[in-house]
């Protein structure tokens, strides 16, 4: 009995020890630098825009980057292109339906195929992308830079910064975004370029 309890306690202690090293990074950037660029190249029209309403959090352990997990949330109404009519269409029910589905979410569950040291890591991020009520498992290339102690240099607050970059392509038809329609003007393939930083102040 005592042996079992000791084993359980040891396992729990090991679990907590590994959790203790993971740093929680908040993706909300007070300076508004975080952005996702989206590009659609259809035969008749090329569309490019940005999304800046990025929130969420990522838990990163420099000693065990494969355990990186978190959630990236993008406010649909923060997607912007320079033509206001196009924005109106994009937010409408046929396309992203911002009224009923105000967020695009990527739930990061783990990293694999990692290379690099604890400061700069490249690999494949696995997780679930949810757009307009449709969720799909995806794996995308990612690079992560852990900038230890650099928050003081940027925001005069002691802490760390995590920079996440990823370029990948999704199909709007996979997520029921006006699937099969208007592909001559709005490409099915959407190229996404993520440049996101997370912040972990030491006092939090």
């Amino acid at each position: 009995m005592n042996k079992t309890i000791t084993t359980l306690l040891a396992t729990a202690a090991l679990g907590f020890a590994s959790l203790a090293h993971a740093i929680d990074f908040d993706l909300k950037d007070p300076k508004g630098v975080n952005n996702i660029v989206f590009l659609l190249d259809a035969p008749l029209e090329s569309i490019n825009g940005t999304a800046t309403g990025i929130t969420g959090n990522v838990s990163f352990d420099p000693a065990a980057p494969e355990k990186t997990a978190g959630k990236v949330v993008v406010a649909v109404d923060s997607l912007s292109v320079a033509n206001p009519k196009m924005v109106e269409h994009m937010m409408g029910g046929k396309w992203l339906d911002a009224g009923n589905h105000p967020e695009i979410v990527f739930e990061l569950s783990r990293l694999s195929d990692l290379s690099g040291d604890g400061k700069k890591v490249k690999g494949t991020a696995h997780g679930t992308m949810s757009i307009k009520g449709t969720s799909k498992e995806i794996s995308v290339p990612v690079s992560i830079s852990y900038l230890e102690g650099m928050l003081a240099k940027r925001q005069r607050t002691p802490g760390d910064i995590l920079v996440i970059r990823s370029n990948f392509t999704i199909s709007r038809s996979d997520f029921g975004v006006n699937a099969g329609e208007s592909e001559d003007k709005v490409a099915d393939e959407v190229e996404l370029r993520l440049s996101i930083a997370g912040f972990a102040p030491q006092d939090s």
Partner: protein
Amino acid sequence: MKAIVIRTAATGALLLGFLLWMYGGARAGFYQTFYRVRHFDEILEIEHFEEVEALLPGIETLGAGVAAFFFLSLWGNLLERRSAA
């Protein structure tokens, strides 16, 4: 006399449409209400964008200029034929 004025207006409309389209960047797309200026955060090494408000005419402005040119030219020709007859 009136026909000459209308034909001159036709050429003016074409020229105006063309110049406005050039001012908007001579793009194949429709009008835009802002343009983006790139910035670079040196600590994060992230490129980000500032949206600067500006009305930039698109291809529809050139199209309107061409349409106005044809309409006014046709009108000018009709007036000239009537006055000759």
